[in-house]
Structure formats: C-alpha cells, structure tokens
C-alpha cells in the first residue's frame, strides 16, 4: 500500500475537487503549452521557410535583411560566387511591383519575382510545371494560387504583365507571358499576389538591361563546405558585401523581430505557472485542512511523516499530471485556432506559423508542471509535517 496508492484513492474519493483541479490545470496548462509553442514558433517556422528555399547563404543590398535595396553589380558578383569551390549554386532574385492581366480582362497588382536559374523551394508547384521545365517559352510564369483564381488562369493560359518600378511612373508596354504552373509562394503573405518568372523575362518587362541589379543573391553551399565556410569565402572574394548564412539571418530576426513574442510568452507562461501553482496549492491545502483529523490519526497510529508527505506529493502530481496531459491536446487545438487568427495579419508570409511544436516545448511543459506539482504540494506537506498530533485530535473531538 504505497503512498501513490493512497493518493490515487484519495483523488478518486474527492471526485468533484479532483475534477475541478484537473480541469483548471488542463486549461492553464493549455495556455502554458501555447506560450511555449509561441515563444519559438515564429523562429522555427521562419527557419523552416529559409531551409525549404534550398539556399543557405543570402547576399543583400546595403539596407540589410529588413530593407530591400538593389545590389550593384549583381551579375558580376554571381559570376564570382560560381567560381568559389564552397558554392554549389547561385540564384539572383529581383522583385518589382507589376500589374498582371488575365484573359478575362481582370487586372491585379502583384509582386513580380524574377529568378535566375532554378529557384525550387521559393515556391511549391501546385498545378502545371516549374519554370525550368517550360522549355522554349520566352516568358514562362508561375502564378500564385490566389492570383490564378482571380485571373481564372491555368497552366497554358497567357497573362499580360506590366512592370511598375517603384518611384517611376510606368509607361512600359506589357509583355505576354504563358502560365507554366500555379504555385504557393513560401514568403507570400495572405492577400499578397505574386507572379514569378525568369530574370530575363523580368528584364524585358522592366526594360532593365541584363546586368540589372538583383535585390537578393541566393547561394547554396556545398555539403562538404557548409554555410559558414561559404560566407567566409564570399567575404574574402568580395569584401564589403552584406552576406548572411541562414543561421545569421535567424539570429538577426531572433534579436530584433521575434524578441517581443519571446518576452510576451515568457511573461504569460510565468503567469500561467503561478495560476496553476495557486490552484493546486489552494485545493490541496483545503483538502488537507478538511482531513487534519484523519492525518493526525494516521500519524498517531504510526504512519510516518514521509509517507504522509509522499501521499500529498503524489496527490499533487496526479492532479497536475492528468491536467497537464489533457492540456496537450487542448493546447494544440487552441494553438491551431490562434495561429489561424494571427496568420491573417497583413504582410506575413502565408506559410509562416506562430505556434510550432518542438520536442523542447514538450520537455519544458513537463518540467514546468513537475515544478508546479512539487511547489503546490510543499505547503500542505509542511503543514502536515508540523501537525501537532495530540492537539489536532483534541480539536477534532471538541469540534
């Protein structure tokens, strides 16, 4: 007849109290779990987006990662990079505002992305084929899903694209492009319309010459070199370039862009932990106060302090443990709902998530609940360990 057995029978006997405690811990635990998912969710999701693009090194203009500025002499830089043994692939990316018109006469503003070479990963083909498989087409395009819906465009259809460079009143003639595929863009926001084509086609649309500057140069390091070595090699070859590995990009965003979420989630998860502690500690203390006579009698008949304390600790662990387990699916459901709401914020990539599961979040959730269970049991354990047996028995009889 272990302390766990006694605790189990106790929580079963006081059902209403037990259900109340478990429900409370489940709700509070769900919030805690969500805060843990939120604390690193954006970072993990952003890392996933970067990884999925298939490039681990980024070269940007003078404005750094957050301000998009053209990189002077992009084509020359790309040629230099291609000659480095640490680099496997290089792609230039140019982004311009544009208008895209479909056969149905609908005209929509969109971001026109021009990419040199294969840029698999920046978008995922949903229908049709990728740019590199649209052989012979002078202007193949990948149209974003929502843009395709708006234009009623399908693979094989023609669309007319008019580049509208920022700050320039555009009088550029439209060019006719053929839809090679419909895709989902990794960095496209909800409501943002995007169309991608080759860099050559973008140059034709914008009137820029072939040596036009890119906004972003992507590079993939060789597996045996790694991103850090590739970054170092680029900086040696072309000093003064703003070159970042994916890890460095993440670190920058972690310091600047995502710090708010981390701080908010830290504050809220600390608060939820305090709520869980207060709830369980209060219920256990009330329960112990109701059972002081029983506990004094147990001590009188020779049941040791340790067993009584262990019983209370197990009671706390059972309440917090079961509540904490129920908190996981509840928190997951809540996270799905909250994520859906938050992702509607304008300007965010559609595939960016706020709440992302990782084993570390689960481990922290469990660790925090263990600490909560022990802390919540500490006061009732202290009360029973110092319980004056004779005085309590006397009070119980007189009462």
């Amino acid at each position, binding site marked *: 007849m272990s302390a766990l057995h006694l605790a189990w029978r106790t929580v079963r006997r006081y059902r209403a109290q037990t259900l109340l405690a478990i429900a409370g811990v489940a709700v509070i635990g769900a919030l805690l779990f969500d805060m843990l998912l939120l604390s690193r969710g954006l970072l993990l999701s952003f890392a996933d987006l970067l990884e999925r693009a298939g490039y681990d090194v980024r070269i940007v203009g003078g404005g750094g990662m957050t301000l998009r500025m053209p990189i002077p002499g992009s084509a020359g830089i790309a040629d230099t990079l291609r000659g480095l043994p640490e680099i496997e692939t290089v792609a230039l990316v140019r982004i311009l505002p544009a208008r895209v018109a479909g056969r149905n006469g609908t005209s929509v503003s969109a971001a026109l992305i021009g990419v040199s070479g294969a840029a698999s990963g920046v978008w995922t083909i949903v229908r049709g084929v990728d740019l590199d498989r649209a052989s012979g087409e002078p202007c193949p395009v990948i149209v974003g899903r929502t843009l395709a819906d708006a234009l009623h465009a399908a693979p094989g259809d023609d669309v007319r694209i008019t580049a509208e460079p920022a700050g320039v009143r555009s009088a550029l003639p439209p060019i006719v492009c053929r839809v090679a595929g419909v895709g989902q863009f990794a960095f496209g926001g909800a409501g943002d319309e995007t169309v991608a084509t080759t860099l050559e086609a973008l140059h034709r649309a914008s009137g820029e010459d072939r040596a036009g500057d890119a906004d972003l140069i992507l590079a993939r390091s060789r597996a045996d070199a790694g991103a850090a070595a590739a970054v170092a090699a680029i900086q040696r070859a072309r000093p003064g370039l703003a070159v970042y590995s994916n890890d460095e990009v993440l670190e920058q965003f972690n310091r600047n862009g995502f710090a708010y979420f981390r701080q908010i989630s830290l504050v809220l998860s600390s608060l939820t932990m305090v709520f869980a502690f207060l709830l369980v500690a209060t219920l256990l203390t009330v329960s112990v106060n109701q059972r002081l006579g029983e506990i004094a009698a147990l001590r009188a008949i*020779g049941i040791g302090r340790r067993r009584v304390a262990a019983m209370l600790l197990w009671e706390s662990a059972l309440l917090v443990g079961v509540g904490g387990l129920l908190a996981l699916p509840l928190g997951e459901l809540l996270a799905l709902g909250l994520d859906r709401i938050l992702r509607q914020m304008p300007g965010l990539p559609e595939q960016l998530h706020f709440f992302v599961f990782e084993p570390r979040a689960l481990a922290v959730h469990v660790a925090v609940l263990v600490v909560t269970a022990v802390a919540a049991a500490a006061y009732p354990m202290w009360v029973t360990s110092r319980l004056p047996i004779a005085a309590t028995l006397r009070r119980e009889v007189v009462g």
Partner: protein
Amino acid sequence: MDIVRANDVSRVFPMPAGPVAALRRVSLSIGSGEHVAITGPSGCGKSTLLHLLGGVDAPTAGSIVFEGRDLASLSEADRTRLRLTRIGFVFQRFFLLPMLTAAENIELPQAEAGAAAAARRSRTRELLAYVGLGERADHLPSQLSGGEMQRAAIARALANRPALLLADEPTGELDEATSDTIADLFDRVNADGTAILVVTHNHALASRASRRLAMRSGQLVA
C-alpha cells in the same frame, strides 16, 4: 512487568489567557495484560494523559517510560515506529481512512511496518473475523455502521500485535447496545493478552476494567 509508566508527569498548555495545567504530577503504570479504565469529567485531563502515554504528546515535566525506554530520549522517527509496532490507538471518531475499505484500513499499519503482502492479507482476514467483520472486508467506512467502524478501528489498532491498546472514548459516538459490543470486544482483546487503557465517560465500559481510576482537575484521585 510495566509496559508503560508515567513518572510525576505534568502537562501545561500555553493559552492566550495564561497557561492551563491539564495534568499535575500524575504517576501511573500499566502492567502487561492489564485492563485499566480512567473516568472523569470532560476536561479533567484523561485524553491528555492517554496522549502522553501513547507518545503523541510530550509532558511539560516528568517522564514517560515505555518498555524501559524514556520516550523523551527517542527521536521523532523512533517514537513513530514505537506507536506503529507497540501501541494501538482507538479514537472516539474512529478516523478510518474514508477512501480505503475496512480491510485496507487494517492493512495500512502492517504495510507501514514492512509486512509482506501475503502476511498482511492473512493477518487482515484473521482480524476481520476476530472483530466480526468478515463479510464487510471490502466495504468503505461510509458503508459501515458506527459500531462496525469502531470494530474495524480496533482491528486496525491490533494489526501489528501491540503490547498496549489506548482507547480514547471508544464508545463516545455509539448507542448503548453497540457500546456493549465494543466492551465485549475489549474484554476479548485483553483476555488474549493485550494491555488496555481506556479513558471514558461510559461507566459500563469502565466497569469491565480490572483497575478503575478517576481523574479530577488533572490529577488521579482513585
């Protein structure tokens, strides 16, 4: 041979209005196999004396010697162990654990004493039959009558074969007929070799004892 001896013990409780002397220089010894009853009005110090003899309270002055060992010289853990193995407690309000069955309540002190599961079950069956609750083994205390609960509590007190059974108003919550059953049971326990000290208002129960003592204002008067 004495099982327990109180040597000139006093017990003073500090109270906001000033200290209250519950016991004043009481000396008492209980021998092996004795059946002692202490009667007296409420608040005369009967329960306090019983708590001191059972090692759940400590005297302000004097000493309690149990089987030759001064309780004051024992650690808290040793006193707990002594209560577990050498003393049985029976309370007015039974204090059975409500979430355990009658059998489990009786098994609990045996488990605490380290008895093997098979030995516990055997001893529990034996005790349930002894107190006439063989058919009620799996009932929760809430499913037992007051008399049955007290019989289960007596069986629990006997679980580790104590040398001394201390009973504090064991019939205080029972009707007359049920009290007689409990008194019969105490007689049987005593006849089987366990010393008993019972403090009670119940003169019928006290009359069963081989030695009757009375208390007034914290002192033994007879």
